[in-house]
């Protein structure tokens, strides 16, 4: 099956019921989506599928016919960090970093359609994402700083 990830096309060999997470990590070696719980409970594997935040561990390959997948690796142009990445860096929103990719992808999706999102909207968009360093305040600060820049 053909799959587009971060703008590049790939021929995937895994069977159709393999999770997108395993395809990304084990076949394409794209390692930013994390295998936290692999049952939808932690949010560390969230990627964008056609711009929408989705749990890659809950998405079978066969459901992705014609879809475009974006991971953290696709956020930056390779020179400068994307605004959400820079904000995580600037506000110390990553501690161990395990939840950061999922958080950043969910935030990216939110800010794409709500550039001036409020703290409550940010909180709701990230509700399914667990940070076991419990660095939620800094994470909300990071996303909010991008939203404030977007609203300005």
């Amino acid at each position, binding site marked *: 099956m053909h799959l587009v990830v971060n703008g590049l096309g790939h021929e995937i060999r895994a069977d159709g019921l393999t999770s997108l997470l395993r395809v990304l990590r084990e076949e394409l070696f794209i390692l930013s989506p994390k295998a936290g719980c692999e*049952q939808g409970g932690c949010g560390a594997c969230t990627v964008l599928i056609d711009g929408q935040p989705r749990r890659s561990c*809950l998405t079978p390959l*066969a459901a992705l016919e014609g879809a475009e997948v974006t991971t953290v690796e696709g956020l930056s142009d390779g020179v400068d960090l994307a605004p959400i990445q820079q904000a995580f860096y600037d506000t110390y929103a990553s501690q161990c970093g395990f939840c950061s990719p999922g958080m950043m992808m969910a935030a990216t999706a939110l800010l794409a359609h709500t550039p001036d999102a409020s703290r409550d909207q940010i909180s709701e968009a990230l509700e399914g994402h667990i940070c076991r360093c419990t660095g939620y305040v800094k994470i909300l600060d990071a996303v909010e700083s991008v939203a404030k820049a977007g609203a300005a």
Partner: protein
Amino acid sequence: MSAPPELLTPTSPAEAAAAFGDGAGVTVMGGGTILLPELTYGRLRPERVLMIGRAGLSGVDNANGVVRIGATTPVGELQDAPEPLVTAAKHVADREIRAVGTIGGNLCATGGVSAPRGDLQAPLLALGARITSVGAGGEKTEDVEAFIEEHTGRLVLSIDVPGGQPFGYARLDRPHTHHYTMLAVSAVKGADGVRVAASGVGPVARRLHGVEKALAGGASAEDAAGHATEGLDLPTDALASAWYREQMLPLLVRRALGQLG
């Protein structure tokens, strides 16, 4: 390594029904939020998987006061459904899961590894939903209570729910990203009396017939709530003990009934 399951991907309701047949050896996947981890972890090794996500079974239509909800309508797209279904749906998991998980999958869910699932079953029971499904013996439409109790492995096509009735909804949350329902009570006042149902009281939701009978006999909400745990075998799981559920269920029933006016 064993061969992967055969994958069936119908593109119309008729194709889905034909592929399902009598259901023997077929595992149905709607959004995949329950099923995919079972496959990933190897807890389930089906012969055939029927993916119905593109079978044209999604959508919410209102006709003459009855709302028809397609089986693969995502939990996150039930804003136009009757209450208390809307409120219950808002509390299922999180936004990313609600966008994918389906009402049909939620209706057919049985108990999870560590907590009850199927938070929409109780509102559907209270609303007196009618379930249209295919499987052995062809297509049939039946009351949701019969559908849940028989649980014979049928393919849900659509769910009909009467709208515009007074309702009540009360729940116990455990702070968690996922809002797993410890206990939730739905009540709906219909033409033939009040229906009351609870999630979190076992592997699937149950109507609280003791409460309903007491209300029909003229009991106050307070007295009727005293019958809340009748006939139930309350579970102890990762969220709460049976003892705690036994203490809290009558309280939630009182609260839900209190909202009926």
